[in-house]
């Protein structure tokens, strides 16, 4: 089952005086329920715009986008689309509405008009899922960046979406905050079967995904498992991205004719492969 299905999706900003500014150009994409997808791309590649299309904050100017079978351009299904795909934005400060954590998390379900007991249940459940239950009475401005972002995720979870799209949720966080957020979304994917689409330009964050998409110039230019993607160092460079250090080291040694596999992602994998090569050399 696919949850997001883009068919020749295009998006451009119309300028009355100039040529329209094309942001997305003929994107075909389908994302399976329950998968964990990392979407990579340099600034201006169109990845944020694609994210905003997924819950109808922006609407296609060409082609169409189906969310769980619903056309995002259908105004009658607007709120159903937004309940199905939740969007978490980059700056955690600017997506929290209330000065109290639990009331902020309640904001979404309150907008859905749910009964108070149900809201309470969802708020507590969501805060537990992101490990922020202990902070339910805190003020957001007293929390760290990672904690704020987890509260923002809880606020979306409380609407019980099937899919979570996160638009560079770690870009403004320190390494500690990045770890917290990443662990949280991985846990949601693993334990609750939540479909996760995470946009990032940290390669290490993409390494843990089931599938990696790379965008450049408004198009999806690469699509595959992390190993398949990261082994194509040259192509990633063309998209103004880099690769994890162990992969890069491997790439450089392969250029020198060393017989290492191309799809190495972590330090541990490199050490094992390197050892094997050394052993081979010694045996000969």
């Amino acid at each position, binding site marked *: 089952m696919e949850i997001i299905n883009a068919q020749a999706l295009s998006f451009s900003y119309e300028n009355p005086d100039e040529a329209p500014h094309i942001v997305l150009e003929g994107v075909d994409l389908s994302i399976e329920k329950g998968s964990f997808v990392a979407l990579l791309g340099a600034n201006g590649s169109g990845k944020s715009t694609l994210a905003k299309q997924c819950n109808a904050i922006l609407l296609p100017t060409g082609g169409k986008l189906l969310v769980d079978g619903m056309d995002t351009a259908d105004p009658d299904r607007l709120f159903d689309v937004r309940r199905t795909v939740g969007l978490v934005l980059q700056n955690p400060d600017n997506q929290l509405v209330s000065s109290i954590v639990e009331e902020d998390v309640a904001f979404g379900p309150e907008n859905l008009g749910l009964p108070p007991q149900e809201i309470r249940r969802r708020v507590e459940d969501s805060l537990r899922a992101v490990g922020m239950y202990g902070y339910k009475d805190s003020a957001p401005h007293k929390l760290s960046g990672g904690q704020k972002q987890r509260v923002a995720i809880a606020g979306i979870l409380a609407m019980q979406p099937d899919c979570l799209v996160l638009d560079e949720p770690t870009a403004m966080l320190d390494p500690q905050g990045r770890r917290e957020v990443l662990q949280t979304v991985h846990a949601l994917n693993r334990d609750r079967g939540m479909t996760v689409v995470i946009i990032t330009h940290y390669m290490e964050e993409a390494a843990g995904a089931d599938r990696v998409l790379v965008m450049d110039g408004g198009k999806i230019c690469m699509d595959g498992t992390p190993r398949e993607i990261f082994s194509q160092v040259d192509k990633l460079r063309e998209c103004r991205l880099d690769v994890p250090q162990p992969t890069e080291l491997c790439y450089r040694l392969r250029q020198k004719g060393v017989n290492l596999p191309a799809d190495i992602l972590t*330090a541990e994998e490199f050490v094992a492969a390197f050892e094997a090569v050394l052993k081979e050399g010694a045996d000969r």
Partner: protein
Amino acid sequence: MTVLQTENLCYTYSPGMPFEHTALHDISIGFEQGELTAIIGHTGSGKSTLVQHLNGLLKPASGRVLLNGEDIWADPKNIRNIRFRVGMVFQYPEHQLFEDTVEKDIAFGPRNMGLSEEEIDQRVKEAAEFVGLSASLLKKSPFDLSGGEKRRTAIAGVMAMRPEVLILDEPTAGLDPHGRDLILEQIDRYRRKNGTTVLLVSHSMEDVARIADKVLVMQHSRVAMYDTAPRVFDRAAELEEMGLSVPAVTRIFSQLADKGIADHDAVYTLEQAEQAAVALLKEKGVTVC
């Protein structure tokens, strides 16, 4: 020669309030002329508080900050001049842009220094060149630039003051890999050309490893390590214990060393790793071209 130095520097936020906390505890360190020092530590380790003391934005609760041997607070009226000599680029500096053209914004600092128009003009051009802003951008509104260009405009605004010491607080935060490499490269080139002492606050060990001469590690409001980059990265295990990630290549070589394959020399850049790997391969008779 030591340019900038702290003596028993201490600082506490909100003293006497319920949320009082010590941010700096007895810091005594010195920064040498022309060196690039990376300052590393968790959020709340005191690194931002430390650098804000170095240009007199915060006043020490006790202890002193010395610039070329002189206490910067000797004459509090003179503190503005100290800020011209110790330039500070804040985190997300693009949030400070306000003029209607890029040129004027870069000129804000030099103009506050009371320089002549020609001198200002020359410095603006020079700083813009360092950060790779083309002449056509100078007349544009800073608010029309891309994120990376805005960031570089803001950095140029501090470079144009030609400070003796340049401090940058996370200059690459939130940028994509391309933007990040560009800025680090420009900072490195700037200090090589001008002999400026540079302090770089960063979360990313991999960024720091490429250009730093020395590394200062802060933890719990104190100095945990302060040494040359190779010596600090030699203590990879300790760094990881503090929860600071070391570059992946450093991890690779410390694992190889543990297995008795490589020597215990710190490897922290890709180039070093490549050389070391090639040397190991040749030793074992693997052909490398």
